């Protein structure tokens, strides 16, 4: 029993050591983390891609039979039409699904190439559409050939086979089931081995005892020692004192450890009123951090974007149409519903595509809470020093739910100030002071600390 537990302990420690080692490595080489993460994710991603490719392949065969290039149509549609049209939904212009069956092809050619002249010529159909859409004329597209327009129309008419779509989602859920299944299996196996080991140990001792008694050896240990072990222990003052000291020290150590983490909210991941996914915005759609957090360039606050910034894009993006994570329940409907929440807050009426003026501000839960007595300025770090947002905020582009990545302790700040060099290039402010100071310290590049970045008053006033 003892040995088994020792093995388990050992295994656990090794695991701990591995983690510590990995953390250390991370601290030295932050890029490693990226590789590491990539490794895990890519495994899944690779599987997905193969599936997707297969799916694409199969569909493209079926389309080629129609002698029209739907994929080309799709890219043309996205480049030219998508800003005003959607397939299934009225946007600035009408929904385009089935438009080829509604109007004659030749009429469509002239309309798309130059709708304004068609309206001017007094074409009844054209004027009717013009009036219906609030007298906003459609852009002209003289660069599109008839063939291009055919392709676009073919794309707009195309109905993707429903079965393959569900197939992919099933396979993905299967896959996740599989992984949890293997985990369980390993656990069960381990438990069985453990039980077997315990029984073996028990049997071995039993056998040994039997052998001993058979050989006539006196097994009464109590008689041998006279006093029980704990009494001996109490009588040995040295041992008692040493162990008391040990106990005190270790409890002090743990108490210190506990106290030091008070108020450190690393990993703080509160539930927000709107499930906003940085992964989708910054990761998949590659939106620059400072597009939304524009104050970070010039102000001490990075600024939570006001809702009108969201509406720059979301006026036209009313539905989520990206990847799903069914395991966690992040379906398309789920995300679309979150966009609804934004619309409600900002007072946007989807049907009339107008603002009602009925707004209610979103009460986000603040994640990064610096204490009041510390002054931190984003622009100093972002614009002057050129520090990546990720350096402090972590891989935000991979965070489905935003959390506090760094401990935000003073030690953490100071450490970075000791290690980072000042970015002096093209900054006239630094020219003189850098020249003088680097001469004084005999270094090529100055760290923030050497420039006075460790002084109390630089952050506490």
């Amino acid at each position, binding site marked *: 029993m003892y040995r088994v537990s020792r093995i388990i302990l050992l295994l656990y420690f090794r695991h701990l050591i591995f983690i510590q080692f990995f953390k250390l490595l991370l601290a030295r080489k932050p890029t490693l983390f990226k590789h590491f993460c990539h490794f895990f994710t890519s495994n899944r991603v690779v599987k997905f891609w193969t599936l997707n490719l297969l799916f694409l392949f199969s569909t493209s065969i079926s389309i080629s039979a129609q002698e029209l290039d739907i994929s080309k149509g799709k890219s043309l549609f996205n480049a030219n039409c998508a800003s005003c049209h959607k397939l299934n939904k009225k946007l600035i212009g009408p929904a385009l699904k089935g438009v080829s069956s509604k109007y004659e092809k030749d009429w469509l050619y002239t309309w798309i190439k130059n709708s304004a002249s068609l309206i001017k010529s007094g074409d009844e159909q054209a004027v009717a559409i013009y009036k219906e859409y609030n007298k906003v004329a459609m852009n002209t597209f003289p660069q599109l050939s008839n063939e291009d327009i055919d392709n676009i129309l073919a794309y707009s008419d195309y109905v993707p086979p429903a079965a393959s779509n569900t197939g992919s989602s099933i396979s993905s859920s299967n896959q996740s089931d599989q992984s949890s299944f293997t985990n369980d299996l390993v656990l069960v196996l381990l438990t069985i081995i453990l039980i077997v080991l315990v029984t073996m140990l028990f049997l071995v001792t039993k056998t040994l005892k039997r052998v001993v008694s058979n050989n006539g050896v006196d097994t009464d240990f109590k008689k041998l020692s006279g006093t029980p072990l704990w009494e001996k222990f109490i009588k040995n003052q040295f041992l008692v004192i040493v162990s008391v000291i040990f106990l005190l020290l270790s409890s002090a150590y743990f108490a210190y450890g506990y106290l030091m983490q008070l108020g450190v909210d690393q990993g703080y991941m509160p539930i927000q009123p709107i499930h906003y996914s940085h992964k989708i915005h910054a990761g998949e759609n590659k939106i620059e951090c400072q597009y939304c957090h524009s104050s970070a360039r010039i102000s*001490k606050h990075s600024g939570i974007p006001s809702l009108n910034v969201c509406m720059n894009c979301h006026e036209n993006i009313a539905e989520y149409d990206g990847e799903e994570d069914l395991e966690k329940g992040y379906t398309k409907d789920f995300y679309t519903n979150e966009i609804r929440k934004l619309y409600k807050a900002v007072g946007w009426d989807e049907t009339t595509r107008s603002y009602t003026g009925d707004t209610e501000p979103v*009460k986000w839960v603040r994640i990064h809470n610096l204490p009041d007595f510390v002054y931190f300025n984003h622009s100093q770090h972002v614009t002057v020093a050129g520090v990546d947002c990720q350096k402090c905020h972590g891989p935000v582009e991979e965070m489905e739910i935003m959390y506090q990545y760094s401990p935000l302790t003073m030690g953490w700040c100071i450490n970075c100030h000791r290690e980072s060099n000042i970015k002096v290039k093209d900054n006239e402010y630094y020219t003189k002071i850098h020249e003088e100071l680097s001469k004084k310290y005999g270094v090529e590049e100055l760290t923030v600390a050497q420039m006075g970045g460790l002084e109390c*008053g630089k952050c506490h*006033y």
Partner: protein
Amino acid sequence: MGNHKKYWKSEIELSSDNEMVHKLRDNEFVNELPIDNFLENKETLKDTNTNRRDFLKYLGFSTAAATLASCEGPVNKSIPYVVQPEQIRPGISNFYATSISDGFDFANVLVKTREGRPIKIEKNSKSEDQGPNARIQASVLSMYDSSRIQGPTMDGQDISWELFNLNISAQLQAMQASDKRIVLLTQTFSSPTTESIIKEFVNKYSNVEHVVYDSISESKSLDAFEILYGKRALPTYDFSKSDMIVSFDADFLVDWQGGGFSKGYSKSRVPKNGKMSKHYQFEANMSLTGANADVRIPLKPSIQKLALLKIYEYISGENVNVKLEDELDGKIKKLASDLKKSSGKGVFITGISDVNAQLIALKINHLINSKVININKLSLIRNGNDTKVDKVVKDVINKSVDGLIMCGVNPSYSLPNSNVFNEALKSLELSVSFSMNNTETAMLSKWVAATPHYLESWGDLEIKSGNYSLIQPTIKPLFDTKQFQEVLLNWIDSNDLYYDYLKLYWNNRILKGLSWNQALHDGVYNLKSVNPLQYINVSLGNRINELKNSVNEGFELSLYSKVSMGDGKQANNPWLQEMPDPLTRVSWDNYLTVSKSDAERLGLKNTYESNGALNSNYAKVLVNDQFIKVPVVIQPGQAKGSFGLSFGYGRTSGVKNELQTGVNGFQVYNQFDSTQSVEIEVINEVHEFACVQLHNTLMGRGDIIKETTLEIFNTKDVGEWNHVPRVSLNHIATPVTSPDVDIWEKFDSSIGHHFNLSIDLNACTGCGACVISCHAENNVPVVGKSEVRRSRDMHWLRIDRYYSSEETFFEDNQTKDDISGLGEALSVFGKMENPSENPQVVFQPVMCQHCNQAPCETVCPVAATSHGKQGQNHMAYNRCVGTRYCANNCPYKVRRFNWFLYNNNNEFDFNMNDDLGKMVLNPDVVVRSRGVMEKCSMCIQKTQKTILNAKLERRVIEDGEFQTACSLACDSGAIVFGDVNDKESEVLKLKKDDRMYHLLESVGTEPNVMYQVKVRNT
């Protein structure tokens, strides 16, 4: 298996409705904790019956709750705008140019706003006029006053603006129809559009008469100017052009004729090419202006009038038949001949509220051909008319007025015979008061129109003729308020908004095609049109006799306005209440100033308590048939036979209880004459003062304030008048600046910025604008009267005032040097503690000196205070554990300790304990907690911001960009801040100046704050 047996304790238990049974059962299992009662309020707590058990439970509960609460961080919410306004960026300050015109203070200012909240008032550098004084600096806090009126009321009941306007319009029309007399009593607006609207209003309602009322009147000066120049206005003075200033009781560095002269005055006071102006002051009270004078002659008001006549005699040659004491006569003769010879660079002014005295002053300036006075550029900020106001008051009392509409005035408080007036006001058919607070007048008016603060208003201003400025809102109105102009427009059935009216008026009449946006951006627009005024020769014969006959033999009271409180409009402003008077250094009070000899004669006493607090008995001041009871301060330099009392205190309504301080001086402001003949009696009751400085003299310590005369300054070597102190090194006197005497390792501050602050004792007038500016910038808490009394005031920047023990400080130094032996030392030093009857005065602003070798840094056990490479002495509040060792080791006594949590503590119910008052806090500076030290940081948040701006714009910093709150506020240019490692900087020039010295240099602290030797032109 459960046990169903029941054991009976007694037979009573068998009867279930027995009282005893219930009681026992209740006691066995005590009820739930009555937490609701406990936490609800004090009243219910008193009623609940708490026994020992409960107490222990509460104890346990609160300990557990506190532990839980401390482990769990609070959840903070962050709420962004739905649509962010274009100009607002969280974390970035915006500045807007606007102007203040509250009827007493007029200035062009720049307002700093953060996230849409105005948080600080600064000067508008585009304006030619004076920058903001202490009261204007503090005015931003008056906006965040929770006792403001939040909407219009009728008979104390809330009412909507629609109903308010409808009712009053109807009543106005009815009263016009029945030809009932209505008076529109307003402050001086000096606003072209407001005057135009009032004109339209008076045109529509012919029964309305407009009367302008200044609570502290300049009517006599206006009348005199009208007699001589044909226009009812005030001339302007440019003291920077002056060589010689003769002032008779004119406190022109404070509020004389609206104030705003210290900028020019200070320019003439700094010796340049061996020259500076010479300032004579004849006065009864020791005023701020008198304290800055080179020659100060204390005279009681009636003698002043005679002396004034005598000067006129010597200058004009017209015999006035006045006999003065020989000594005084000699001085006046000399002075008059100097004035005559001053070739236009002399000026003669007076603050005596007498038309004849004012006339003579103007005539003297005309005779000596003074260039300092400008009769073509007129000051328009005082326009009240005593005779008209007096008539209105009498008519109201006689009931020959039926309606009174008041704006910007508080007659119930500021009229001398207010009781009679108040009774009459209550019974008026129509009484409307436009007011921000529930002032005395508003309480008695039937209708109260809630008006916005000037930071929430539109408007315009013409401070001096041709100097136009705009008032623009910097925040949306906090409450349901409407401007006077807006309401008036409504009453004349105009559909215009005041903003449209203002814009149209400016575009048509003032800008004439120039950009409105540019004017709004600059805040000021100067029109150079001069209509020269002609001097009208008036014979003075009769007037001279009138003046002679008004002489009074008995005690005289001189009423004055304090630099902190003015006319009392901002009595609800805790910053101003806590600001010490520059001369008496008393805060939270006004008092009767008495000369020492009169005090001894009458039995008026000042006593010091063992903890360093000041007490006094009371004086019963009898004026005509009424009296007021006033505490007493013995004031060195007070003219014998005269007493002083300030306006602005004794407000009783619309002001928080803690801030209802002092005695109302307006009660004895009969005939709007600042001089009243009085009788004094002693009342032996103890009054407790909050005075921040009890040690009044320097005791001959000439190295704290170094001063010299212009003659010595011009002729002698620097070493004679600004010698470096020497210390003993191996029994050899060695200059303290020598590196040999230093036991510390030096900080190398040759690279990067090294900040220094220079304070010119010649330019500093002691006005205290810097003190309030520092308050606003650094979130300095207000601690209240009783804490100030315990010397726990929190001002980061104080202005020390010293009196000389002899006639001059120079003599003090000599007396001290001449002391030989212990016996003499004891007796002489004892005498030197008392200031002279007419002492020299000096002001010295003292803040943290930011020593390069700071005594505080070496003794801090937790290294909470440390030295920065840029010369600032840092203070990390969160590191401080409050041993107060640093404060004990500081030779300058500039460190302040937070004895309490001044924010969020009901015992200190000032702006920081108030949700609205907290809006004024500067978000870049932390609010300090209880138990930590704090002190001047040399506005490190400002220097850091300047550096960051330069880094962001990738450029070098130019001189003048670095500023502190005090250097920005100092309009006299006494405080200069900058980087001494910048070879071009102004502050480096000042550091190399001969006049430069450090405070207590002999201690060897090597401060980064320096002073410039005071030079007196005696």
